[in-house]
């Protein structure tokens, strides 16, 4: 088995060693699988391990690379996919008991793209049931139990890409796919101390992914570094006619941030979090000093527009979710979900009027204009990813995470890209995250900012003691 020092390497370095045949893709896959079987099980990180598929793909990669047919930086690299992505031959449970035996006879587009890149799928990552689409109050809102945070196993990794967060923090795969409708990549990345990228809406095809909110769902990577996120997004982006929300290819295709090296105007959001906890405040203040010292950044304080953005975004997610899960709600099988709020949320969502739904959409139009004006002043917005560190496994989230999150609502309502990277640790020994948010199609700029931050800090190289 390969050592932790290797298994925690970023994809950029692993791929270099795989290409030069210093590391065998088969040995790499076997090592991650072994950790996933043992550590992963203790963390409730996976729904299913796809061992047979992984070894088949790893052997094929090894053979091709030996024969000189190198497909690119993800060739032979093991990854995990959130269990809402269709995968032929294996269950796709959406993290929920009513779908425990669900299967599809095709692969999601992102899986197809990663297959073509020669990546190795080692398992389906645990998640919050239905990606939290019916609401939830507890970390246990998952058919596989609460995902435990490798930094402190009494704590949660956040949701809904909870397993993807645990997998990356514990070194159980080289990268993982998550999804975000509202917070589901940024929060697990923040709580778990990994780098997670939510791409611009429409850049990554959702064909074969569970739908929660048709106008807000996004698929993105959780990785060790911003540079790794960049690599993965380059591979999974692009137009797909089978996803009606997919952008035209010229917009959807992501060329990467390598050429994004110019000066950046950063906007430090002053009204994002009302009252961050002292440990978060301390870590983020130190991070700001790092950014201020970077000569290619100029920083100014900026205020987000005020308005009912979060409620309007909530209305849209709720109505779209009620439509997406109509049969589950109508049949009453939604009551088979784990979470007390998840059991009843769908019933309430069905009661939202068409008038309120359209009002929310009109408010979205106003908000998009206001954000375009704001992005005329700055390139990238910055704030703490969350105002608190990881909550404990038994916390009632209605009490602990009920704070306002304007940029979360705004960013997801307007389809803005965001990336969270680690920037320190809090009082429980759990990570603090820093988020960079960009204009539509500004993915390269947020990656550039995060990459520069990581070139000046080493928080992303820290790893928890997991056994």
């Amino acid at each position, binding site marked *: 088995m390969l050592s932790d020092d290797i298994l925690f390497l970023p994809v950029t370095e692993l791929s270099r060693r795989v290409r030069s045949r210093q590391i065998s893709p088969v040995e790499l896959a076997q090592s991650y699988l072994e950790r996933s079987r043992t550590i992963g099980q203790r963390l409730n990180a996976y729904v299913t391990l796809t061992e047979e598929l992984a070894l088949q793909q790893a052997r094929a990669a090894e053979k091709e690379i030996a024969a000189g047919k190198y497909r690119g930086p993800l060739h032979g690299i093991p990854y995990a996919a959130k269990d809402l992505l269709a995968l032929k031959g294996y269950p796709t449970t959406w993290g929920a008991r009513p779908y425990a035996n669900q299967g599809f006879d095709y692969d999601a587009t992102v899986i197809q793209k990663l297959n073509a890149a020669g990546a190795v799928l080692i398992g389906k990552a645990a998640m919050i049931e239905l990606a939290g689409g019916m609401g939830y109050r507890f970390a246990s809102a998952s058919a596989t139990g609460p995902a435990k945070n490798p930094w402190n196993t009494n704590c949660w990794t956040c949701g809904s890409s909870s397993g993807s967060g645990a997998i990356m923090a514990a070194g159980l795969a080289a990268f993982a796919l998550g999804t975000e409708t509202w917070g589901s990549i940024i929060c697990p990345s923040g709580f778990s101390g990994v780098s997670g990228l939510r791409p611009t809406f*429409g850049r990554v095809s959702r064909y074969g992914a569970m739908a929660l909110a048709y106008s807000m769902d996004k698929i993105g990577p959780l990785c060790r570094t911003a540079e790794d996120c960049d690599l993965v997004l380059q591979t999974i982006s692009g137009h797909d006619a089978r996803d009606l929300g997919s952008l035209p290819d010229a917009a959807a295709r992501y060329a990467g941030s390598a050429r994004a090296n110019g000066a950046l105007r950063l906007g430090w959001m002053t009204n994002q979090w009302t009252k961050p906890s002292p440990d978060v405040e301390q870590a983020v203040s130190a991070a700001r000093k790092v950014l201020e010292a970077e000569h290619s950044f100029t920083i100014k304080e900026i205020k987000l527009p005020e308005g009912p953005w979060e409620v309007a975004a909530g209305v849209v997610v709720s109505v779209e979710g009620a439509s997406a899960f109509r049969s589950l709600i109508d049949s009453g099988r939604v009551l088979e979900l784990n979470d007390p709020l998840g059991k009843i949320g769908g*019933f309430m969502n069905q009661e939202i009027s068409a008038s309120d739904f359209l*009002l929310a959409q009109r408010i979205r139009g106003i908000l998009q204009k206001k954000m375009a004006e704001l*992005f005329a002043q700055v390139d990238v917005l910055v704030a703490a990813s969350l105002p608190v560190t990881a909550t404990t496994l038994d916390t009632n989230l209605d009490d602990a995470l009920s704070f306002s*999150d304007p940029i979360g*609502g705004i960013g997801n309502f307007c389809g803005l890209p965001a990336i969270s990277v680690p920037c320190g640790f809090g009082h429980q020994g759990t990570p603090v995250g820093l988020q960079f948010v960009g204009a539509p199609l500004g993915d390269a700029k947020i990656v550039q900012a995060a990459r520069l931050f990581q070139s000046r800090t080493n928080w992303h190289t820290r790893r928890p003691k997991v056994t």
Partner: protein
Amino acid sequence: MAKVSVDRRRFTLGAAAAAATALINPVQALEQAQNAGSGQPSNSLEQKAQAAMAKLSPAAQAEVQSKADSILRKYGNKLSSEQKTDIRRALAETQDGLEKMRAFVLENGDQPATVLKIRADGGRK
């Protein structure tokens, strides 16, 4: 910025609250008084529901009640007393957010943005 009742885990309620809050009507109050034991709403949950309702205007209370009644008509036979109370509480707690959204001033020509539109300049001015 004011704290809102809708967040990444409760957006579902924000939507629901968009439609109504319930007055605790006498029949329900009687049912609740008669419900004691497992599966019945705790005093604390009932108190929270009542407290949330009390903060609302009569019109808002009526809206919440209307929504709660609609849910109970369709799904009441599948729900426990505790779940029924929880629904009323959640609807009531999120009503305020909906009313703030409805108070947002829009012009006749403000069109709905149902999908992200990418402009040639990437969304910037």
